[in-house]
C-alpha cells in the first residue's frame, strides 16, 4: 500500500516538474514548483524523515517560492 503511494507521488512529481519546465508563464511555473515541494513533503514523511519534511514544508513551499515571486515582481518590468 505504501509502495503504491510512493510510486504515485513520484509519478505525479515527474509530471508536475515537466509541466513546470514547459510552462511559459513564470508565476504559474513558480506555483507548480510549490507543488513539487508538497509532493516532496509526502515522500519525506513516508520515508520516515520528519525533520527534513518540516524544513521542506516551510522553505520549499512557503518562503522560497514567495521569495521567487517577489524577485519576479521586482524583475517584471525589465523583461
Amino acid at each position: 500500500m505504501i509502495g503504491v503511494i510512493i510510486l504515485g507521488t513520484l509519478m505525479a512529481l515527474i509530471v508536475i516538474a515537466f509541466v513546470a519546465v514547459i510552462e511559459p508563464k513564470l508565476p504559474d511555473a513558480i506555483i507548480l514548483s510549490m507543488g513539487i515541494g508538497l509532493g516532496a513533503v509526502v515522500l519525506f514523511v513516508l520515508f520516515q524523515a520528519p525533520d527534513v519534511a518540516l524544513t521542506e514544508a516551510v522553505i520549499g513551499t512557503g518562503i522560497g517560492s514567495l521569495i521567487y515571486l517577489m524577485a519576479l515582481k521586482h524583475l517584471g518590468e525589465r523583461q
Partner: protein
Amino acid sequence: MNIKRDISTNAISSFALSALFVLTLLSILLQHIPQKLSSAGDKLLEINAQEGVANAVTTVVVYFRGFDTLGEIAVLFIASFGIGLMLNFQVQNNQNKVKSNFMLQLGARLLFPIILLFGVYVMTYGHLSVGGGFQGGVIIASAVLLMLVSSNHFQLSHRIITLLETFAGVSYVLIGLIGLIVLDSFLGNFLPHSASQLGLLLSGGIVPIIYIIIGIKVGSEMSLIVQNMLQRSDND
C-alpha cells in the same frame, strides 16, 4: 508562438538529456551496491545513546557536525547581508502600498501568535522530538512574512534584529571556545549529559542551548531577507 515552441523544444531536449544522465548514473551505481547497508548509521546510534539526546538527528547536526552547522549559519548570514546590500539602497516608502483585505488582516493577526508559539515549541523541543533550530527559525520567519504581507504598519526594528543576530553568533562561537578550553575539542559538551536524563527538557548538555541559538539566528536572518525583498518590491 515562436518563443513558446522554442521553450518547449529546449525543455524536451533537456529533459531527455537529464533522463539519460540519471539512467547512466543508476546503471553505474547498481553494480556497486554494498552487501551490508547503513553500518555507519548503526555506529552513530550507538554513540548517540551515551549523549542523552532523544533525537538522533539533532545529535548529528549540532554535536557531531557542529562546526559544519556554524559554517551553514555563516552562509545564511552572507546571503542576508548580500540581499540587504543589493536591495536596500533606495529610500523605503510604504505610501503607495495597496491596502489589504479586512479578512486577510484579521486572519493574519489571529494566526500570528499561534505560528510564533509553534515555532518556539519546535525550536525548544528540537532535542526531544521532530524539528529543531532551523525549522523553528524558518517557521517564525513565515509568521513574520504573513504579518508583513497583510499589515501596512508592521515593521521589524533593525536594531533589535541586529542585536539578536549578533548575540546568537557570538554566543555560538563562545560556547565552542569554552568547550575547546574545558574539553580540548571545539564545541565539546562540557555541561552534564547523562543517558539517565533521556527525554527530559533539561538534558543533553549544550545541545538544546546551541539549537535555540541557531533558531534565533535563522529566524532573524530569514525575517530580514523577507522584509528587504518585500519593501524593495513595493517601490516599483
